[in-house]
């Protein structure tokens, strides 16, 4: 009898094939995310991409305020923690003085689409050659489940106790669609991680975004990941992932919103 790193007791561990392992670019530590939260999945995908592309020695990440504020405890990459909403300004500062480095931001919906809207729009408009990962879970998870700019109409949160009323709180913002119409954007896509299939597609998109930056393609690479928040939504992870399929993706459909012209 032997015990794996995850504490699973099994027979003849040394005779078994390793079919899945944690990338070394993730710290060997439990995350602070709730069970079933999409953050952990997306963290893993980005770190796997960094490992597979061999860019660890050149990559700098920026994570601002939100559930992912401690991203540097999980992502074993050089990182800067930014003020709420300012991740892309911080990333701009890094990329402008070190144009050969690979820079990415990892931002939630409150950060990227509410308090940081100006930075988001102008960073993409300048065509900063960075990767922006946008975690859209439709709620403020860290502060306890308040309305986000992306909260769907009718959804109950702690600050929309009767459900989001578009006449009062406005509409769920479509910032990824706004990103896609800007000339500075190079690649804009919306992905999800609520099933094995979407996880695989999401990783492919993240990899493409980083590859574009490595290749020096001019413009911003923007990957929205429609995510869950089981704790904030007050659902089990399975129910939360189901809600994404049944409701969220109707309003935020998956797919590429802007792809580079052929041959570019």
């Amino acid at each position, binding site marked *: 009898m032997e015990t794996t790193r995850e504490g699973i007791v099994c027979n003849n561990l040394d005779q078994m094939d390793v079919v899945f392992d944690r990338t070394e670019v993730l710290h060997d530590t439990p995350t602070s995310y709730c069970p079933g939260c999409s953050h952990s999945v997306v963290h893993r995908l980005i770190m796997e991409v960094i490992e597979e592309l061999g*860019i*660890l*020695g*050149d*990559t*700098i990440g*920026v994570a601002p305020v939100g559930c992912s*504020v*401690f991203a*540097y405890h999980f992502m*074993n*990459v*050089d*990182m*800067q*923690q*930014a*003020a709420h909403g*300012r991740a892309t*300004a*911080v*990333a*701009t*500062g*890094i990329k*402008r*003085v*070190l144009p050969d*480095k*690979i820079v990415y931001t990892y931002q939630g919906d409150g950060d990227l689409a509410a308090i940081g809207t*100006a*930075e988001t729009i*102008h960073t993409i408009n300048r065509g900063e050659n960075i990767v922006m990962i946008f975690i859209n879970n439709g709620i403020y998870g860290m502060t306890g489940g308040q309305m986000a700019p992306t909260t769907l109409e009718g959804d109950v949160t702690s600050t929309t106790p009767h459900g989001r009323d578009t006449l009062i709180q406005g509409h769920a913002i479509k910032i990824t669609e706004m990103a896609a119409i800007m000339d500075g954007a190079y690649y804009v896509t919306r992905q999800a991680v609520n099933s094995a299939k979407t996880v695989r597609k999401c990783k492919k998109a993240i990899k493409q975004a980083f590859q574009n930056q490595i290749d020096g393609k001019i413009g911003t690479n923007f990957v929205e990941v429609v995510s869950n928040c089981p704790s904030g939504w007050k659902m089990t992870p399975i129910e939360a992932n189901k809600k994404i399929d049944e409701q969220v993706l109707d309003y935020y459909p998956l797919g590429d919103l802007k792809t580079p012209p052929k041959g570019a």
Partner: protein
Amino acid sequence: MGKKLLMKGNEALAEAAIRAGVKGYFGYPITPQSELLEYMATNLDSRGGVFLQAESEVAAINMVYGASGTGTRVMTSTSSPGFSLMQEGISYMACAELPCLLVNVVRGGPGLGTIQPSQGDYFQAVKGGGHGDYKLIVLAPNSVQEMADLVYLGFDLTDKYRNPVLILADGALGQMMESVEFPEYNVEEHFVDHSSWTTVGRENGREQHYITSLHLLSEKMEEINVHLQDKYKKIQENETRFESIQTEDADILIVAFGLSSRSSQKALELAREQGLKVGILRPITLFPFPSDELKHLANSVKGILVVEMNAGQMVEDVRLAVGSNVPVDFYGRMGGMIPQPDEIVDKIKDLYKQVKI
């Protein structure tokens, strides 16, 4: 020293920054500092740096944050309302111990105020400005020459202490033209190796570096605060700078910084012509404040007059320094008005009567 040039204060400051090896400038237009931004736009790219006009002062200071985290010499400049917008970012930088040079070419407030010169941002500059317990190193030039000189000092201090340095100028110093000479400054000789903490990628698999101002454990956050306070104490002990003018025999001591020290200097000449023994103590560093020198001078002078372009801000630090040892009076103009030498002389005469010399 090079040859003498006739330049605006804003331009002299920008030229000095380029000569001091600034590699990143991020800013936003606002009067009366826009020439600084424009000088950078015209000259920095061709001389080895990066200029970027941000979408706001909020974005600009965060660009400075990001670039500073790579160990690059970076700066921004603005004027009062813009400096208010930067406070959040400056507080983050103070906690994360990121070096940078900040410039506030102060205009009259509060609110949108006026574009004329003022010293109304003294409290904001020396008492923190943003949230939390932190200090900036604050340098106060009083001439176009010093607008240049203090840039070199500012970069050296910010690198040495890993603490943001602020040059607190005003609209007149930014706009007025005087002759200036740029000193010899070898950037390489002043290079500080920050590679033990900068975020530039984990080259050769070295351990992770990260920059943060978040420490949720109170014990850890207190530790960070104690470390910062120790650093400020060290700065206080080692970096206090001031100029004394005819203080040896002075009955009345004027304390003034920046532009109001220039008016005070003329007032000193006029007063001395009338046989009044007046001296000036001009703080060059506003933090650290020359409290010890003031305490020392309080033993020999009969009265102190603080002259400022505000409602009385530095005067509080003067009173804290000298206590009740000597009467401290104040003369200030506000809203973009500059204290005139004859007004100051009148005030000196009043003080003479008060202290019955």
